[in-house]
């Protein structure tokens, strides 16, 4: 199948090094300490963070650092054909583990001993790159919860189809069976926290694909920083308005 047309456009009209549109919302889950919705094109993910709170299972408590837990799930309606999947299947336990390890690398766990941080991510719409979207959503939710972090973690995937490195694969490109490199980085510290690939690829090609994915991660990082600052200002303005309103009602 042809994934890149002779004009150099992909199936959904993007160029090979073009990302899908990003969108983020913060504070969607009222009960959680931090929450976010993150969209990459048609992939939509919701994340909620609870904690730092007391450890539920005392035997898992660590006296020098916080326990980070993560649960990944896919909504039944997230894929094209609606399926009822068992909760702890192989794929979701693996992704839970991957997200947990990635987030643990950036959280300053030693500041919160004897406590636990829970991250719940759920895929609302799946269109490829759910792993990356989940990590980005979790980062935003952790930031919203005010949990101290070394740096933000951002993630993006890249693939190699029709002898072209492609950034941010969608479902059709993902299921083509080619290599899919998912990278997670700490953008300012310039460190890799996640690197996954389930295919064989020559070293020089791999380097190109990984470099492309890293560029994608940096673009996501810029977006997240911007959106975070914008939303913070927005929250402040809303708060200010409320204060003014309350003052007025108080005067009358």
């Amino acid at each position, binding site marked *: 199948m042809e994934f890149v047309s002779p004009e150099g456009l992909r199936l959904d009209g993007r160029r090979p090094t073009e990302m899908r549109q990003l969108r983020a919302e913060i504070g969607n889950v009222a009960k959680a300490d931090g929450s976010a919705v993150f969209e990459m094109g048609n992939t939509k993910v919701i994340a909620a963070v609870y904690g730092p709170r007391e450890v539920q299972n005392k035997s898992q408590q660590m006296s020098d650092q916080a326990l980070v837990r993560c649960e990944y799930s896919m909504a039944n309606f997230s894929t094209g054909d609606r399926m009822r999947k068992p909760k702890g299947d192989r794929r979701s336990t693996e992704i839970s583990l991957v997200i947990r390890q990635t987030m643990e690398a950036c959280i300053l766990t030693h500041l919160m001993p004897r406590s636990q941080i829970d991250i719940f991510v759920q895929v609302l719409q799946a269109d490829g790159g759910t792993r990356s979207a989940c990590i980005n959503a979790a980062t935003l939710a952790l930031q919203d919860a*005010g949990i101290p972090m070394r740096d933000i973690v951002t993630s993006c995937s890249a693939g190699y189809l029709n002898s072209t490195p492609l950034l941010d694969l969608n479902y059709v490109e993902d299921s083509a069976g080619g290599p899919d490199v998912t990278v997670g980085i700490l953008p300012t510290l310039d460190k890799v926290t996640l690197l996954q690939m389930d295919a064989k690829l020559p070293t020089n090609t791999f380097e190109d694909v990984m470099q492309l994915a890293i560029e994608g991660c940096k673009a996501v990082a810029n977006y997240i920083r911007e959106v975070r600052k914008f939303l913070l200002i927005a929250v402040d303005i809303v708060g200010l308005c409320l204060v003014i309103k309350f003052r007025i009602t108080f005067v009358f």
Partner: protein
Amino acid sequence: MVVKEEEMVLVTPGEVLGKATEVKAGKGAYVAKHNGLVYASLTGLLRTLSPPPDSPDQRPTVEVTGHKAHGPVPEPGSVVIARVTKVMTRMASADIMCVGAKSVREKFSGIIRQQDVRATEIDKVDMHLSFRPGDIVRASVLSLGDARAYFLSTAKNDLGVVSAESTAGKLVYCISKYDLNIILFYSFWIFCILQIASNIISFITLFKFS
């Protein structure tokens, strides 16, 4: 500490705030050991605090104040308000409700051991005469305790039961530590006597008017 007047600067985790040789990392900031830079660890407003003039370290402190305040957590030495839940012969367990002036967001449990109730005659303390379930106690945190509960102490003049319900169902406030225990102990008898008295009075009035 004096806050320097400057425009609002918003930072996100991982942004460089300065060199460790020039600034000190306060709340919401950390020093990376490998390159000696100060990074932000929270999202929020950046503030620079100038050092007190008499300190030997003349570096200003940078701190990031987030928009979300975490609930207070008891630490050794802090004064807490707790509600007694269970009284045993050797100790009483209590739920911590406030740390200092702030109410806690989640549940913290504490234990007041027999030897920590008062400063004198610690071996003669009767826990059942000192506390009853539902009492509101002002206590100081001795230590983080065991895995389950903080160790609390009321062995100071300004600590102890501050509010309780008597057996008659009325709220009793503390006037002094000694009085409250006495009132609580005798209130049942006072209640009984009052009940008997009122019964007699009603009996007499009934008898008179019939």
